[in-house]
C-alpha cells in the first residue's frame, strides 16, 4: 500500500502518476482518478491564487488519505494539490485511488476529495479578467454536506 502526497506549485502529469501507481503491480484491479481544474467562471476570471498552510496542508491530506486506505481497503492513494497562481483550464488537484475492485476505488477517491475540500488548509482568491482581484472564494455549504455523508 502506498500513499503519495505532494503539495507543489508545479503542474502534474496524470499519466505518469497513474503509471507510478500501477507499474509492476498485479494486485490492483481498479484505479479511479479525479482531476480538479481551474474554471474561468464564464470569462470572469483571469486566474486563481491558491494559498496554503505549508506543513499542515501535507499533513492533513496524508491523514485523509490514510483514513481512506483503512476505510475502503485501498491498495494506494496519490494526492497532489497545487498552490500559487493557476490559470483557467490548468490542473489544481489530482487524486488517484487504487483498489482490488472498482467500488472501493470510486469511494476512496470521492472520500479523499470531500475531506480535502473542507479540511485541508487551502484558500482560493479570484483574479478578474477585467483587472483587480475578486476577493476570496467563500466555502460552500454543499462541500460541507458532502463531507458529512461519510460520517
Amino acid at each position: 500500500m502506498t500513499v503519495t502526497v505532494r503539495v507543489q506549485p508545479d503542474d502534474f502529469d496524470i499519466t505518469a502518476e497513474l503509471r507510478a501507481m500501477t507499474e509492476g503491480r498485479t494486485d490492483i484491479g481498479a484505479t479511479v482518478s479525479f482531476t480538479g481544474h481551474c474554471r474561468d467562471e464564464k470569462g470572469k476570471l483571469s486566474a486563481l491564487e491558491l494559498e496554503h498552510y505549508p506543513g499542515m496542508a501535507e499533513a492533513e491530506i496524508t491523514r485523509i488519505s490514510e483514513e481512506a486506505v483503512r476505510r475502503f481497503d485501498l491498495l494506494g492513494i496519490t494526492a497532489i494539490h497545487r498552490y500559487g497562481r493557476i490559470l483557467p483550464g490548468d490542473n489544481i488537484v489530482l487524486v488517484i485511488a487504487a483498489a482490488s475492485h472498482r467500488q472501493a476505488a470510486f469511494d476512496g477517491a470521492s472520500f479523499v476529495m470531500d475531506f480535502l475540500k473542507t479540511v485541508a488548509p487551502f484558500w482560493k482568491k479570484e483574479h478578474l479578467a477585467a483587472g483587480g482581484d475578486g476577493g476570496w472564494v467563500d466555502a460552500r455549504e454543499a462541500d460541507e454536506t458532502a463531507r458529512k455523508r461519510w460520517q
Partner: protein
Amino acid sequence: MTKLVYFAWVRERIGTAEEEIALPDDIEKVSDLLTFLQARGDNYAVALCEPDVIRVALDKVHAEHDEKLGAAREIALFPPMTGG
C-alpha cells in the same frame, strides 16, 4: 512567546502573515485567544468580527473554539478552507 500565523483574508485584514506574542496567563481556550486578539486593534477587530467563522489550528492540527491552547507553540487563524 507564541507564534501566531494567519492565512487568506484573516492575514490580509490583520495585515501580517505571522507574529510572536506573549500571551497572558489567563488565556486558556481558543475562544479566549480570539477575544484577546479582537482587542489588539481595529485590524484585529475587523478580521475577527465574526469569531464563529474563524478556524484555528494548534501546532498544525485543527482545534475547536472550546479547546484549551495547552502548550501550542504555533497557533494559526484562517477562514474556512476552499481547496480542491
